[in-house]
């Protein structure tokens, strides 16, 4: 059981900034995210795109914003459960909550802050009629352990970075890698595209374009995929393989949070914006893009504000009746949980002779 003060669901910008604000109040945080890395949409969808409305940054790349937020909250030693989706929540007799992930990891905290953005990212599944029958029987939408492909024949479908990068990576592990894409052009980084070209020329990657996987053949496990190729004349053929990995990106779904008894409106969680961004369940807050209230704007900077106010309310729940006054970091400095201290340099006093 992982125990913490504030359990944050979602490691995007709002969740990461919560760690900092909570740390100033000496509250520890742990974050759960379905993605394998922190940053949420900023690192998953558009890490190389600029953002222009972060105060004091005329321009910052989404990936850089994530790195800076991680650096800013580092001394408060956040814990991470990554690559797992928060599945269930149970209120305990002592008013705390236990949140369990899809992999069974349990977390306990007196305060839960949902900073889940548009939801957890789920793989987009291609529309192949019998694909569901082969899930985990040779069809994988996410590569978790590349070793399972050792000396196996692998077919990858997709045209973005993940399709290219995994084709490159698996060409060293699998006995055979085939990359299938609907177009001849790929949307990845230039060096990935060039690397695939090179591996294709060396015969290490078998490239089939423009083409599409339209069916899966197998008894209990994938034996082959049906490929429709559209170049010159349309033809359809079976390609023997052991694994089929469709990589068509991820799309966010509110998912299990929708069943937690929270008031939901327009795919977002209703909160009390006049006070503290608490939901209809005391002790559970929702901040950032995942919440809604009259006048809500889905902006990163609004998430930062909501996180800050929410932490004050969390402090009251965790330390009932305890006195507290807001401190300015410039005046008080920052004492990290790791023993580090940041503070403004002392004024220099020196006489003029």
């Amino acid at each position, binding site marked *: 059981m992982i125990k913490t003060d504030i359990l944050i669901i979602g490691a995007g910008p709002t969740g990461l900034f919560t760690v900092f604000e909570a740390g100033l109040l000496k509250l520890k945080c742990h974050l759960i995210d379905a993605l394998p890395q922190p940053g949420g949409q900023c690192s998953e*969808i*558009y890490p190389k795109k600029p953002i222009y409305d972060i105060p004091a940054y005329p321009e910052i790349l989404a990936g850089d914003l994530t790195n800076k937020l991680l650096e800013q909250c580092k001394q408060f030693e956040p814990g991470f459960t990554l690559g797992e989706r928060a599945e269930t929540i149970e209120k305990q007799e002592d008013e705390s909550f236990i949140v369990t992930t899809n992999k069974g990891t349990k977390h306990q905290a007196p305060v839960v802050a949902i900073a889940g953005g548009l939801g957890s990212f789920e793989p987009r599944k291609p529309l192949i009629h019998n694909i569901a029958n082969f899930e985990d029987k040779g069809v994988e939408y996410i590569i978790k352990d590349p070793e399972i492909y050792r000396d196996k024949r692998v077919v990858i479908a997709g045209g973005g970075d993940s399709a290219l990068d995994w084709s490159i990576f698996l060409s060293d592990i699998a006995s055979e890698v085939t990359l299938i894409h609907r*177009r001849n*052009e790929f949307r990845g980084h230039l060096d990935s595209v060039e690397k695939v070209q090179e591996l294709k020329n060396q015969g290490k990657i078998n490239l089939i374009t423009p083409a599409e996987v339209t069916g899966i053949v197998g008894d209990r496990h994938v034996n082959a995929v049906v490929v429709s190729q559209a170049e010159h004349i349309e033809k359809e053929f079976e390609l023997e393989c052991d694994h089929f990995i469709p990589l068509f990106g991820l*799309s966010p779904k509110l998912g299990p949070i929708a069943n937690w008894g929270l008031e939901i409106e327009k795919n977002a969680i209703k909160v009390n914006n006049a006070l503290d961004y608490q939901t209809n369940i005391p002790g559970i807050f929702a901040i950032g893009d995942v919440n809604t209230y009259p006048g809500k704007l889905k902006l990163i900077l609004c998430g930062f504000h909501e996180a800050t106010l929410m932490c004050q309310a969390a402090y009251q729940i965790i330390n009932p009746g305890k006195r507290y006054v807001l401190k300015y970091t410039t005046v008080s400095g920052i004492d990290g949980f790791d023993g580090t201290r940041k503070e403004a340099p002392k004024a220099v006093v020196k006489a003029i002779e």
Partner: protein
Amino acid sequence: MEQDVNIKITDRDGVTHEVLAPTDMAMNLMEVIRSYELAPEGTIGICGGMAMCASCQCYVNTNHNLPEMQDDEEAMLSEAFNVKDNSRLGCQIQITLGMEGLEIELAPES
């Protein structure tokens, strides 16, 4: 108003809505659909309009002269599902006066 155009949008339930879209607010088709709430929040415009998610894919059913498809839109559509010859990403179509009478249909959610 003069700077508004009439557009017919068929939502994912097959219901057709006749809406007025402003041409002077730098709005695109995805944003018009959101402003009229013709698709639930969180199911359209997920990437914010960067041609990176295809949640605003629509089928264009009239022969209007629309802005030419750029590489990123074409690449995204090549990875999207339910794509047809008349598929476009709503976020890449800025509303202009030439779009009077445009008829589009939202592609299914995927």
